[in-house]
């Protein structure tokens, strides 16, 4: 069976606003960097297929697919769009190569939330029109309800959530791609405005603009394109029910099922021992704890304690979100998953600069599609082909 590697990454970096460039120019910049990183590959002839990950409402176009080819070098080539999170896009690219018909695939995702004047109205538009929308309110109250039930059921604490903010914004200070690095402590978090009890304002990741392109290759060509390929050991994805009335509020079941699917493929039996570090969705502070537990990196109710003991810091035994997560880097809409994945690739290559972890061989990237969804995806990566 052929193996699949990541041989190139390109990123524009993330910023709160980018009035100076269009989304097309942003995508071109990320793509150019990725092709350069993958042995200066020429997309006009050396990339077999292209996948973009985009959602029409975030873009403001119907059938956004059609606005994509030019800036990726995909004109007159083989391209389609995945409407979902970008790790679901990664799973699609991975499967394309597994078919044997494609040796190289370029995967693109970007977010330009500063182009959207009514971002939260678009989130509201994802709520059920019969049961939920008529009640009004800001849709992030869903996160408040989930945080409340999660903390109550698992015994993780309010203050431990605050520690996530301090850790991630701190990590982001040594990440040049990050938009929101800062020195904050637990006290600062607890003094932040209450927005969706028990969730405080500073615990909600802020939107950021930026684009990422990833180049995948089969083992046939991977080492020719990059002498340090990062191997995709497994991918998984899953959805729980969208129903807010009947879903599980204490656990991220979608992430658990996605992780089990990816671990099985990767041959990982004991994630808490075998996984060296992880990049997980932290759109809201508590989500990092909930996702750590869903990924079986610790037992239920233990994630907060590990955070409190410093185990998840850069120099800890199990670093979580060394990039700074979305609390530190910013929330780039559907590109959130590739933002997580990129950090795993950089860490496994030993190219993470000041925040480089030592002796890492297996890293996990996990994504969630955000409010009000219960859909997530997981990728397990390694610098050993194995």
């Amino acid at each position, binding site marked *: 069976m052929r193996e699949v590697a990541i041989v190139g990454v390109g990123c524009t970096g993330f910023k709160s606003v*980018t*009035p*100076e*460039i*269009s*989304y*097309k*120019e942003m995508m*071109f910049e990320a793509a*150019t960097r990725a*092709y350069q990183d993958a042995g200066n590959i*020429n*997309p*006009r002839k050396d990339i077999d297929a292209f996948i973009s990950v985009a959602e029409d*409402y975030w873009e*403001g176009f119907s059938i956004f697919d059609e606005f994509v*080819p*030019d*800036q990726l*070098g995909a*004109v007159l080539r083989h391209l389609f769009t995945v409407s979902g999170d970008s790790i679901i896009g990664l799973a699609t690219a991975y499967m394309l190569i597994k078919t044997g018909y494609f040796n190289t695939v370029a995967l693109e995702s970007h977010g*330009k939330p*500063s*182009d*959207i*004047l*009514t971002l939260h*109205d*678009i989130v509201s*538009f994802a709520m059920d*029109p*019969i049961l939920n*929308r008529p009640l009004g309110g800001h849709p992030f109250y869903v996160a408040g309800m989930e945080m409340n039930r999660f903390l109550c059921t698992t015994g993780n604490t309010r203050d431990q959530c605050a520690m996530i903010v301090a850790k991630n914004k701190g990590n982001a200070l040594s990440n040049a791609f990050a938009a929101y690095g800062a020195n904050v402590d637990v006290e600062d978090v607890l003094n932040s405005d209450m927005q969706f009890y028990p969730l405080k304002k500073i615990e909600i990741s802020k939107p950021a603009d930026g684009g990422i392109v990833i180049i995948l290759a089969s083992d046939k060509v991977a080492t020719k394109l990059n002498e340090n390929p990062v191997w995709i050991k497994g991918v998984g994805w899953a959805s729980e029910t969208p129903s807010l009335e009947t879903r599980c509020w204490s656990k991220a079941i979608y992430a658990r099922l996605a992780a089990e699917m990816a671990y099985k493929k990767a041959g990982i039996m004991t994630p808490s021992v075998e996984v060296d570090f992880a990049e997980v969705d932290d759109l809201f502070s508590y989500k990092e704890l909930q996702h750590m537990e869903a990924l079986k990196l610790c037992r239920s109710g233990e994630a907060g304690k590990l955070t409190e003991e410093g185990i998840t810091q850069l120099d800890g035994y199990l670093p979580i979100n060394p990039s700074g997560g979305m609390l530190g880097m910013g929330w780039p809409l559907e590109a959130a998953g590739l933002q997580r994945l990129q950090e795993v690739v950089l860490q496994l290559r030993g190219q993470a600069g000041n925040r480089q972890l030592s002796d890492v061989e297996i890293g996990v990237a996990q994504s969630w599609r955000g409010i009000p969804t219960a859909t997530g995806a997981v990728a397990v990566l390694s610098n050993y082909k194995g």
Partner: protein
Amino acid sequence: MSEKIKHFPGESLKGRDIREGRVPTIKHRPNVKYLWSAGVAMSRFLEGLKKGKIVGSSCKKCQRIMVPPRAFCEECFRPVDGYTNVKDTGTINTYSVSYVAGDASRIKEPILVAVIDLDGASKGMGILHLLGEIDDWKTIKFGMKVKAVWKLPEERTGTITDIKYFKPME
């Protein structure tokens, strides 16, 4: 199949039944608004229109002058080498006569739309715009020479409609 059935059981629904609430429905008008950054290439294009100029961009590798301008050449996948004005005259590549307005209603005076290959741009490149000052649309011909009719400088706002339409050159 349905032709053979003379009478369907039950009561048939009319549009009125839905409008008047006899069928349960849900109504919601989303509040979706965007303000797209025009970016490097399109900003130059829009600023050009305001000054009565049509801006293209050039790629040395494939030797093309591209209109509308872009920051990168999609054929060669490299940044463009510069920006240059093309003429506001050109030839009709293709056209249509639209008897239907944007809201799908029938209109008396048809809208004449055309793709115009602009002089000074590479072959097959130019602008999609309206045709005007044409009494009988049947006089429109492929390859016909046309010229832009601009709004007055003080009326221009840096949009594609700063050109009112293209008219036959004759």
